[in-house]
């Protein structure tokens, strides 16, 4: 019976398995500390919740070769400037509603979820809402009665009645506005935002 060469032996591979796993896990944990710090709300890539008091738009950054979000002047949501705490509460209501109504099993958020309905990452900036000045109200009415306000662009797919209240709808709109300010490295590809009424 010939001997197994050392590099193919059980012992050597047990050690490799342990060391490789340990090193990769440590690197991941290290990167996680860094990443979580960069995506905490209030950082450069993920603005604080009170960004909903501001105008959000996109410009092309040639150096990064992608569209990136820019935070402009005052543009309070529903015409009322909120304190950071109030803004966070409103966005939190929105996020809870998004989870409670199971939005992600039809839509994608940041590109993750289901593929039955459009991506919501930049829904706030979508040209479908017509003009900047009317979109907030249009969004609230749509969320509260998607059947009556359906626009299916010929696909026949309508959003169901989810029993969203007016408060919840406002929260969702705040959440969507905040989410549209996240720097997503140019996703979704080539996004064309709503026409900016008074370019800042």
């Amino acid at each position: 019976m010939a001997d197994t060469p050392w590099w193919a032996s059980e012992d050597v591979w047990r050690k490799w398995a342990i060391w490789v796993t340990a090193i990769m896990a440590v690197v991941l944990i290290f990167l996680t500390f860094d990443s979580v710090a960069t995506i905490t709300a209030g950082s450069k890539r993920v603005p604080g919740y009170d960004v909903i008091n501001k105008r959000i738009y996109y410009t092309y950054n040639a150096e990064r070769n992608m569209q990136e979000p820019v935070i402009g002047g005052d543009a309070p949501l529903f015409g009322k400037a909120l304190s950071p705490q109030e803004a966070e509460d409103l966005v939190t209501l929105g996020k809870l509603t998004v989870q409670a109504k199971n939005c992600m099993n039809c839509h994608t958020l940041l590109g993750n979820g289901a593929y039955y309905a459009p991506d919501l990452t930049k829904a706030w900036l979508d040209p479908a809402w017509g003009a900047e000045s009317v979109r907030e109200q249009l969004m609230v009415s749509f969320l509260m009665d998607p059947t009556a306000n359906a626009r299916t662009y010929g696909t026949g797919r309508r959003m169901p009645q989810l029993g969203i209240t007016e408060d919840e709808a406002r929260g969702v709109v705040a959440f969507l506005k905040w989410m549209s300010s996240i720097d997503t490295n140019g996703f979704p590809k080539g996004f064309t935002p709503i026409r900016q009424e008074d370019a800042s």
Partner: protein
Amino acid sequence: MNVAAFNSANLNSGQKVAVKYFAVAMILFLAQCLFGLLAGLQFIMPDFLYNILDFNVNRMVHINAMVVWMLYGFIGSVYWLVEEESGTELVGAKLANLNFWILTIAVAIVVVVYLFVQTGPGTKETLWLINEGREYIEAPRWADIGIVVCVLIFFYNVAATFMKGKWSGISGVLVLDLVALAGLYLAGMFYTTNISVDQYWWWWVIHLWVEATWEVLVGCIMAWGLMKTLGARRKIVTTWLYIEVALMFGSGILGLGHHYFWIGTPEYWLSIGGFFSALEPIPLVAMVVHAVYDSGRHNFRNSNHPALAWLIAHAFGNFFGAGVWGFMHTLPQINLYTHGTQWSASHGHLAFFGAYATIIIAMIYIAVQKWRGDVWMSADLPDNGWKWKWSLGLLNLGVVGMTVALLISGYEQSFVERALGGSTWAAYFSAQATPWFMQGMHWRMLFGVMTMIGVVLLLWDLVTIGKGETRPAIDPTIAAATA
């Protein structure tokens, strides 16, 4: 020897629990496909069950049934092999039984609430009681906690049994992997408003499950299965398990980066994700080559043809679904177009089916054989074994057909919506309405029905195969030694 019927006297006490898990797994597999068909139909007939059983509910049940049946399949597989591998009796057979019933009742309650309550107000209570609203791990928080407790009991039972009996390389990897698998679930159990942070941890659960811990878990099952069905040698099988762990964790842990391109995380993930994803197929290639090498060296006579066929389906399914279909859309230059489109669904179907459904089905065939009293399951079955052959064929063809159909729709989607349309809602819908996209949806239904027929046949075969068989099984260890 009783050869006419299922007879639990043929099973050890771990295996008696295992077959219960397997039974529920197969029922949930049927439910999964049923709700998949409902969801798929809604792409073609959007008014079907509108405001009654909407797409989001059907899809949630579809993918949750999948996750749960696969976990049941894994738990069952571990209970199946624990006594033979440890050389001693399961320490808590009663506990295992109780645990099974609690878990199953909890699953039933969750499903009933999904179907009949569906959604709740935007409060934390909804997330605790009804639905957490996060893909794959929608189960409400009470159920999360229940699942963790049940998994801990399961874990105690398994680890204590090995402790009382003997450890082996396979059981060592298995137990450590179970710790990681359960621990990762905790990363999905908290609420945060910050969607970027939410998705960051959510992918720890999803990716580090399917591309790391689940792969290693099925590696353990495969190692054990090869010894059982083919009489492969323990030393070799164990060495290859370590090789797999090193390659799989070496590429898969940081391969997580391919989900961190667009969720707000820093740009260095583009490079890390791209690099490690390029390595991820290597362990899968290694497994296929080793399997072929092994069967080339030995003239294996195997004791269970359906099980071996499904193990082969696993090797190829894992390679194509995860390796080929995964790499195809993984580099960020392409993923920018394909992220969150039917491409992902195409890959998801082939990978989950090819890597995990297959091997669990193989284990269940191994279980059924023993449950019947270790009867013959090689060539020359009565009826020519048409049921297992047809269900194997229909299921694989059905899933491959759906995968190709979704790929065509996905290509059309990324092209029309992303490349030409400017990624707006109007662009999304115009892509969805194109004839190519819609044809893909129709073909998916056709192949979905084929898959469903395959499932029904599979279940029928599982309850009938080996019935009335009088020939004993081939002993693979003797067969291998004389080959």
